[in-house]
């Protein structure tokens, strides 16, 4: 055995970069933007059908309609019942799902590549010719309402929802949860879903992404067949400006009697997906709270033992989404944890990250990008972002270079622009009788307690 030095890390081998797979772009005769990437490692294929105009295009009275409509797609088509649809898909080992969100609706499919010719027509049928039979709609609606009820008693969801309303001004769609409220869902009928799908499940401005062991020409032919006769653009259009609920720091405690831990959120309005600061800000956020060895996690977890973990993230959307630090901490350390979170925010916003921190974050981001291209589903998810946000076709080919080009100064400037501790909204879901007084004593800003009973 050759002698070696165990006391220091071994040298790296020679790097073997690999590129984001080539994505062919075609336009189907109905205007649908088709993107196909041939990845032939294994005989599988992943499909996403994205249709624009999501929850952010809905008024507050219709909140949750996009989400509920998508959830009801497994209820059957004009040709087959929900059970028949599920059996048709699963008989050939195909997994199908659909979900609605801020940007739009996405239907997805995962199956063995030699089953695509049978499976894609089923996805098309589910989306283009949905049935919305009354009993299935009633079922989906009951499930949705019961889900909202569960969220109201889940401390993490409760904190999330309460925080959104503190970050965004009333009337901004992002101020509410994307799946609506009991009031907006309770009034929904099968006709509403039918109307929503008919008006908004349209090929223009959306895209079909197919990644796997496939041939582009064959996919084009299959897709033309599946989606022929389907035309038009979505009727709902998102049209709003994001404004913050407040420009001053405020503290809200949502009382959860007997809680043995506090769910903590500290955040404010962030920025949008196409910001020129995207790469620099991503690096700054990784340093703050985007990795295990981030400042926040090393402080709150590894130094102080306040928490099992803490993360910060930007919700990058078409319009500025939330920027937020999220954690759960013990009751007695809640004020100290909030203080430390604000300290870390102030530190990075005013002084920026160090040279070493930026180098590590850059390397992490560039490296993990490759690691996350192992499966066709991961690649399809990335490729669908091209469509959702209208990113340049060579975006992922340039991704690592742009990440590696982030400078310490650039990350510091981005942090200073987009992380604003003085405007941060502090939201704590916990036992207000225990954590309220010491939190108020921190004197961070206007202080409020809500004692509305969850589920009431």
């Amino acid at each position, binding site marked *: *055995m*050759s002698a*070696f030095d165990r*006391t*220091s890390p*071994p040298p*790296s*081998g020679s*790097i*073997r970069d*690999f590129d984001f797979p080539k994505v062919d772009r075609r336009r189907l005769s109905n205007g649908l933007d088709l993107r196909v990437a041939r990845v032939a*490692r*294994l005989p*599988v294929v992943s499909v996403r059908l994205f249709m624009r105009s999501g929850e952010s295009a809905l008024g507050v009275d219709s909140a949750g309609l996009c989400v509920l409509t998508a959830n009801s797609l*497994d209820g059957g088509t004009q040709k087959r019942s929900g*059970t028949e649809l*599920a*059996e048709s898909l*699963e008989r050939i*080992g*195909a*997994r199908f799902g659909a979900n609605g969100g801020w940007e739009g609706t996405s239907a997805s499919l995962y199956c*063995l590549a030699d089953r695509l010719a049978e499976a894609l027509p089923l996805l098309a049928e589910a989306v283009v010719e949905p049935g919305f039979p009354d009993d*299935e709609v*009633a*079922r989906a609606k*009951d*499930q949705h309402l*019961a889900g909202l*009820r*569960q969220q109201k*008693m*889940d*401390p993490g969801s409760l904190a999330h929802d309460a925080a959104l309303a503190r970050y965004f001004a009333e009337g901004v769609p992002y101020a509410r949860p994307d799946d609506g409220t009991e009031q907006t869902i309770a009034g929904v009928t099968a006709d509403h879903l039918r109307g929503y799908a008919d008006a908004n499940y349209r090929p223009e401005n959306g895209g079909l992404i197919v990644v796997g062991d496939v041939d582009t020409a064959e996919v084009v032919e299959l897709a033309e067949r599946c989606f022929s006769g389907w035309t038009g653009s979505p009727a709902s259009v998102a049209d709003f400006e994001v404004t913050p609920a407040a420009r001053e720091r405020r503290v809200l405690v949502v009382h959860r009697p007997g*809680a*043995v*831990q506090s769910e903590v959120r500290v955040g404010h309005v962030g920025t949008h997906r196409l910001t020129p600061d995207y790469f620099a800000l991503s690096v700054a956020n990784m340093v703050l709270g985007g990795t295990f*060895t981030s400042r926040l996690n*090393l402080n709150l977890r590894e*130094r102080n*033992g*306040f*928490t*099992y973990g803490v993360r910060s993230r930007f919700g990058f959307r078409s319009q500025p989404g939330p920027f937020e630090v999220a954690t*759960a901490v*013990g009751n007695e350390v809640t004020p100290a944890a909030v203080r430390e979170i604000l300290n870390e925010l102030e530190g990075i916003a005013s002084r920026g990250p160090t040279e070493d921190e930026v*180098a*590590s974050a850059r*390397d*992490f*981001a*560039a*490296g*993990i990008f*490759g*690691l996350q*291209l192992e*499966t*066709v*589903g991961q690649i399809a998810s990335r490729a669908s972002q091209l469509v959702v946000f209208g990113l340049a076709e060579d975006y992922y080919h340039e991704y690592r270079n742009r990440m590696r080009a982030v400078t310490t100064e650039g990350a510091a400037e981005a942090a200073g622009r987009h992380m604003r501790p003085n405007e941060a909204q502090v939201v704590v879901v916990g036992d207000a009788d225990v954590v309220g007084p010491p939190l108020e004593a921190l004197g961070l800003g206007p202080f409020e307690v809500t004692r509305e009973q969850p589920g009431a």
Partner: protein
Amino acid sequence: MSLRVPIERHRLDNGLKVVLSPDRTVPVVAVNLWYGVGSRNEAPGKTGFAHLFEHMMFQGSAHVPKNRHFELIEKAGGTLNATTWFDRTNYFDTVPSHELDLALWLEADRMGWMLPAMNQEKLDNQRDVVKNEKRQRYDNQPYGDWAERLQRLMYPEDHPYHHTVIGSMEDIDAATLEDVEQFFQTYYIPNNAVLTVAGDFDSKSALEAVERYFGEIASGPPIPSIPGRVDLEPKLGKTARDHVVAEVPLPRLIMAFRTPPFSADDFAVSEVCQALLGMGRASRLHRRLVRERRVAKSVVSYQYPLLTGASMLLTWATGYPHTDLDMLESALAEEIEGLRDAEQTEVDRAIALAETDFVHALENGASRADQLSMFELFFDDPGRVNTQLDRLRAVTVEQIRSFALDHFGPDNRAVLTYEPAARGDR
């Protein structure tokens, strides 16, 4: 479908079992270690220690200061974590393939030289972290005590699965540095571990690297026998019940059954039964309870494949606000017992989905490595990753019917129910 995961097996002189599975299609490599120790090895008064110890494994080792393991892997663009379970503890790093040596060096350093880096401050810190983990995942969650209650119903007090992996606050509080030392010397030895490397590497040089980093770690004495009584009746012999009125949003019923140990021949039958019950939207429980009868908001079924005495098949049915729990129980029982009339078409559907899931698991180096480690540690046969699908395919509808008759009756059930406290006021 005839996909095969390539497998090479080796064993170092110190007893470390090594599984290599090269796949050079993407420049990613997964390093995965399974240690043959879990919560079942915990003595009374030491519950939760295997998991707390797992946290201590990230606190540094002789040549790796605290946090450095994370720093180095993250800087390399990799990911890492670990989990503790009843029968084992696993550690895994996924890195760009040119950093394979780094991952091996880090794992070897803590397998061989962890103790010199331990101190009271680190133990106290991770004790706090684990207590917050327990609060976040269990104590502060609706239904958060379900595992504790269910395990008490399913396994007798002196059985190693009677207590949960997270353990009790008192026991976590009582853990000492001496416990850390003793646990390390007893269980974290090369002859109680499997190392799997899966992904982009050359076998010859990878094996040399493994030998270089792990070869000089001394082997230890045989692992002590599992505390408590490990034998178990194959069936519970009754319907064991626990009813909880608590601050929960919806009524929920958990029904569980003792099933054969992971190593038993008919475990595969049990797996297919579970698939018929809960795999996919056309599965029995979803179709009947959620879609047709609309008595459950959601249903879930899964299996704990366990080594000691008996595995456990679990089904969950979450009701609507006004769902009657007795009705929910009989509806659930009816569908599960109905497997005695299972049909070939539903078996075919479950197998078709299992085939897709099998290929999906192969897509990901980390999951491939994890399965190889598991099969090597538990069965001395990593090749089971390639025969697993055949084991499922070989299950006949007659076997399912008779398995259901044998295992899913009222003489082999634990029923745990949660009723929302607020409901009484309505």
